C-alpha cells in the first residue's frame, strides 16, 4: 500500500476511528496494531526481518543500559578516585562496545546484503559457472522488506544513543517495536530518534479538533504536491530520457530543471502526508525539509534537504569519524607542521566527508550512479570547506558585495544548480545517459524547440503542461510565504468560515480532478472513448 492510494485513505479513516474510540491509555496499542496490519499488508514475509532487527536492538539496548546502570550504582556506592572511576567506566564501555559491534554487524549486515546482493547475482553465477556448477541465482529471490533502510537506521540510532548514554534504554519491547514500525514513517521516513519520537509516542494522545483538522489539511497539501505536480512532470521527464535519441538540448535542460522540482514535490509531498497522518493522531514527526532552495551553500542545503537523513549521518557517521583518533592525529600533525589554516581544514575533513557522502550515496541506491553521486557531493563539500574562505576573500578583493539580496539569489541559484547536477547523475538511470544529456545540452541546444510545441510531445499535452506550471507557481508562492514566517494553515484558519471552507474544498477537488491517477492515465487498460 502506498500513500497515494484510496485504500490508504480508508486505512487511515478506520484507524483514526478505532484510535479515538479507544481509551487514552491504550491508544498507543492501536497505533502498534495498525502499524503491524499496515506492514502485514505490504507482505507478511517481511515480518521476520523487522522482528529480528527490532528485537535484537531492543535486547542489546537493555543489555547496555543495565551495564551502565550497574556501573553508576557501583561508582555511587563506593569511594573511588578519578583514575579508578575512569577504569570502571572504561570497563563498562568495553563490555557495551562488544554488544554494539555485534549488533552493528548483524543489522548493517542484513541491510547491506539485501541492498547489494542484487549486484552479486550476476558475478556469482559467472563464478560458479567457471567452477563448473550451473547455478541460476535470481535477483528476484531477494526479499526487500518494506522500509528496511528506515527502520534499520532508526534502530541503529537508538543503539548508538544508548551506547553514548544519550537516551535511557527502553524497558518495554512493545513500545520499542511501535517506534521502529510506526506506519506513517516507515515508508519514506523521516528518520526519527528514540529520544524524540519514542517519547512523543509515550505521551497522552488526546483528541484536539484543531490539530486533527490541520493534519488532514497537510495531507491534502501533500497529495497536491505528489499527485498534481510531481507525478505530472514526471511524465515529461521520463518521456525526455526515454526518447533521448531524438531529444534536443533544450528539452534536456527543461527536464533537468523540472527534475529538481519533481524530486522536491514528490518527496516533500510524501513527507507532508506522513506528517499529516501522524498529526491526526497527535504525534509530531520531525521536519524533513526546510525550504532547501533558499540555501546559499551546499552544506546549508543538506541541512535543509532530507534533514533527518543528513542529521543521522552527521551524528552517527561524521562526528564519530571526525572525533576518532585517526582524524585527531592528522589534525595534530598538521598543527605541528604549522600548515596554513585552509590546508589543515581540508586534510582534517577529507576522510569524514568522503566516507559520509559515499555512504549517503549508497543509502539512496546501489549502483554506479549512486556511488558517483556520493563522490560528487563529497567533492563539492570538500571544495566548499577548503576554498570557501578563499572565495570570500577573492570576492572582497573584487568588491563584490555579498550581503545584497541579489547576491543571495545568485548563491541560491548556484546551490540549486549543484543539486541539479547531482540529480543528473542519478535520474537518467545510467552514467552514460547523464553524460549524453549534459553534452547534448551544449552541443545541440536547438532553442527553437522551446517554442515550437516540442514540449508537448513527451506525454504531457499543452493543457497538462500549463496546469503543471500553475501548480508549481502556487507551490512556489506558498513556499516563499512560509519563508517569511507565515504559517499557511494558521493563516487560513484565522479567516472566515466561508473562505476557509472554499479553500479546503478547492484543494481537495483540485487533487481529485487534476491528480495523476486512475485508468485515464493507464492507456493500455482503459479506453473510455471506445465505441
Amino acid at each position: 500500500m502506498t500513500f497515494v492510494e484510496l485504500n490508504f485513505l480508508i486505512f487511515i479513516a478506520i484507524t483514526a476511528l478505532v484510535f479515538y474510540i479507544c481509551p487514552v491509555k491504550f491508544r498507543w496499542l492501536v497505533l502498534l496494531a495498525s502499524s503491524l496490519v499496515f506492514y502485514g499488508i505490504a507482505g507478511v514475509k517481511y515480518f521476520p526481518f523487522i522482528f529480528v532487527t527490532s528485537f535484537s536492538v531492543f535486547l542489546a539496548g537493555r543489555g547496555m543500559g543495565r551495564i551502565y546502570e550497574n556501573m553508576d550504582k557501583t561508582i555511587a556506592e563506593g569511594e573511588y578516585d578519578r583514575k579508578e572511576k575512569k577504569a570502571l567506566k572504561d570497563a563498562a564501555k568495553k563490555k557495551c562496545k562488544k554488544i554494539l559491534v555485534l549488533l552493528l554487524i548483524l543489522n548493517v549486515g542484513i541491510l547491506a546484503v539485501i541492498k547489494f546482493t542484487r549486484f552479486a547475482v550476476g558475478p556469482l553465477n559467472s563464478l560458479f559457472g567457471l567452477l563448473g556448477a550451473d547455478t541460476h541465482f535470481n535477483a528476484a529471490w531477494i526479499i526487500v522488506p518494506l522500509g528496511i533502510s528506515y527502520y534499520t537506521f532508526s534502530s541503529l540510532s537508538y543503539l548508538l544513543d544508548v551506547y553514548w548514554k544519550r537516551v535511557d534504554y527502553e524497558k518495554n519491547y512493545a513500545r520499542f517495536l511501535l517506534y521502529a514500525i510506526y506506519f506513517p514513517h516507515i515508508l519514506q521516513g523521516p528518520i526519527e530518534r528514540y529520544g524524540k519520537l519514542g517519547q512523543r509516542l509515550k505521551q497522552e494522545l488526546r483528541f484536539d479538533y484543531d490539530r486533527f483538522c490541520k493534519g488532514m489539511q497537510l495531507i491534502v497539501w501533500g497529495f497536491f504536491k505528489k499527485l498534481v505536480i510531481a507525478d505530472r512532470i514526471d511524465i515529461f521527464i521520463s518521456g525526455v530520457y526515454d526518447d533521448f535519441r531524438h531529444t534536443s538540448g533544450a528539452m534536456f535542460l527543461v527536464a533537468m530543471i523540472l527534475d529538481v522540482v519533481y524530486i522536491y514535490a514528490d518527496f516533500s509531498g510524501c513527507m507532508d502526508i506522513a506528517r499529516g497522518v501522524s498529526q491526526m493522531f497527535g504525534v509530531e514527526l520531525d521536519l524533513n525539509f526546510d525550504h532547501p532552495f533558499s540555501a546559499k551553500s551546499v552544506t546549508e542545503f543538506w541541512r535543509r534537504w532530507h534533514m533527518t537523513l543528513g542529521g543521522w549521518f552527521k551524528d552517527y557517521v561524521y562526528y564519530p569519524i571526525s572525533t576518532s583518533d585517526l582524524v585527531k592525529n592528522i589534525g595534530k600533525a598538521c598543527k605541528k607542521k604549522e600548515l596554513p589554516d585552509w590546508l589543515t581544514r581540508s586534510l582534517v575533513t577529507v576522510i569524514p566527508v568522503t566516507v559520509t557522502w559515499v555512504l549517503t550515496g549508497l543509502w539512496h541506491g546501489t549502483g554506479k550512479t549512486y556511488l558517483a553521486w556520493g563522490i560528487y557531493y563529497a567533492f563539492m563539500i570538500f571544495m566548499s570547506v577548503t576554498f570557501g574562505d578563499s572565495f570570500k576573500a577573492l570576492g572582497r578583493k573584487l568588491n563584490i558585495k555579498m550581503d545584497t539580496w541579489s547576491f543571495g539569489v545568485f548563491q541560491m541559484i548556484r546551490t540549486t544548480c549543484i543539486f541539479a547536477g547531482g540529480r543528473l547523475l542519478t535520474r537518467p538511470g545510467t552514467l552514460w545517459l547523464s553524460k549524453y544529456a549534459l553534452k547534448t545540452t551544449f552541443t545541440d541546444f536547438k532553442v527553437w524547440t522551446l517554442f515550437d510545441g516540442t514540449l508537448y510531445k513527451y506525454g504531457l499535452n499543452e493543457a497538462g503542461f500549463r496546469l503543471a506550471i500553475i501548480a508549481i507557481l502556487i507551490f512556489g508562492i506558498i513556499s516563499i510565504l512560509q519563508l517569511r514566517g507565515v504559517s499557511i494553515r494558521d493563516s487560513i484558519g484565522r479567516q472566515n468560515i466561508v473562505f476557509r471552507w472554499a479553500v479546503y474544498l478547492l484543494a481537495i477537488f483540485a487533487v481529485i480532478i487534476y491528480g495523476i491517477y486512475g485508468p485515464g492515465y493507464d492507456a493500455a487498460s482503459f479506453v473510455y472513448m471506445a465505441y
Partner: protein
Amino acid sequence: MKKKNILKAIAFICIFVLIFNYISNVFRAKWLVGCSETYMMEEFYELEDNSIDVCILGSSQMVYGMSALRMLDKYGISAFGTATGSQPMLCTYFYLKELDKTQDFSTAILDISMLYEQEEDSRFRKTIDNVPFSKNKLDLIWEYTKGSDLQEKWENIFSIFQYHSRWDELEQGDFDYENMESSLFKGTALRGEVRNDIIYEDIVTDGGEIDSELTMNENQKKYFVWIVDYCKENDIHLVLIKTPKRSWNRTKQLGAAELAEEYGLDYLDFNSKELVEAIDLDIPKDFADPDHLNIRGTSKLTDYLCEYLLERYEYRDSRKEAYYDEAEMNRFRADFENKWLRTETDAVAFLKLLQGSDYEIALQASGDISAGLSDEIKTEFANIGIDVSEIKDNYVAYIKDDKCEYKETATEPIEYIGKFSDGKSFKLLSDVTDIESETKTYVAGNKTAYAMRGINMIIYRADSNKTIRCATLYVDETGTMRLR
C-alpha cells in the same frame, strides 16, 4: 468533541458530498453522439410506478427492433426498452432487476444476440456510470470486478476516479446535457435509413452451414441463465427472439434454439425463412444497415410480436393510463412520419406521402425531364401543385399545402432565395448548362442536394425547423425512374 465541532464537521462533509456528486455528473463521459445509455436511463427514472407491462431487453437490435410507442399507439401495450449497444448479459440482468424495482411487468422480450459476442469493458462502464447508486449497482460492480483488486471497485463506484482526467476536454454538452435532444421514446428508437444492398441470403439462415468451432460466450451464457431464473422466480413470461441481421447464422440459430428448449422458453428467430415470410420482411427495403432494421422492418416486427403476445397473454389498455403522454405521442408520430418519408424508395408512394401533409417543399430542376416521367408521376406532381411539363430549361418552385406558392421558369440560370414558413432561408440554383456544379440547393447556407440531373426536392418541416429529406427524382441509363 464539542458539539459545535461535530456540527461543523457534518456540514463540511455534506457540502463536500454535494459538490462531489455534481462534479461526478459533469465529468462522466456521456457519449452524446448516438449513445442511448444516458438518455434511456433519464427516461427510465421518470416512469410512473407500475405503468409498464412489457420489458424489452437486449442489445442495439432491440433499441431499433421494436417500437414501444407503436405498441402503445396501435395495440395499447405499455413497454420500455432497456436495450443498449452491445449490452453484456450481466448488464441486461441488472436492467431487468432495476426495472422490476418500480415496475410490475408481466412479460420480458429478450433478443439473444449477445450470447455469441464478447463482453466489452466500455459497455459495462457505460451502464455503471449512468445509473445512480443502489444495492443493485453494487452487485453489478462486484460481479463485474470479480478477481480485480479493491482499487478497481472504488473506481467503478465513484466514477469520478475514472473520468477526472477528462478535465481538459470538457465541453458544453457535459454541463448541459439535459437540454440535448434524444431520439429515444421509452427506450426505443426508429431508424430512418435504407440500405438496399442487403440480399435474402444475407439474412435467412435456413440451409446455412454448421460451424462446430463456434461456441457461445461462457460469461454471457452464465448471466443469461440468471435472467431466466429471475424471470421464473418473479412470474415474468420470458420470450426469446432474434431480430433479423446479417451477422447471424445457422450455427448460432441452432445453438440458441437448443438453449431455449433447455429452459422451456419460446424462441422466435426472425432469421428463419418461416418468420421472415410471416412478417412479410422486404429485405432490400426494411434494413437501415446489415444488422439493424429500419422503421419499416421495425414496424412489421413490432406488430407481429404484439399479436403474438396478445394471443397468449392479457394486457391492460395503457392508452388510458398515466403512461400515455399526449405530447410525447405527438412527437413520436411526427418522428414516425418523417422517418417513413425518409425510407420511402418508391417515387409514386413518396409523392403520395407529401400530399396533404405539413411538409414544405423547395424544388429545383433543370433540363427537359418530363419525357422520362410516367403518367402516374405526372399526376402525383400535379397533386402537389407542380406541372412537370413546365420544366424545360431552368425551374425553381416553393410548395406549401399542396399549392405552388412560388415558381420561376427561364432559359437563363435562376438563383432563388426563399424562406420556409418558420423563417429559415433556402437557396435554389438552376443552370441547365452547368452539369458539373455539385450543389444546386442550400438550406440556411448549407449544401443539401447532389448534382443530379433530375428533380431535386428539399422536404422541410417548419414546426420542428428541420430538413427531413433531400430527395432527387431522376431517370437512369436504363430509363427507370429512381428516387434517391
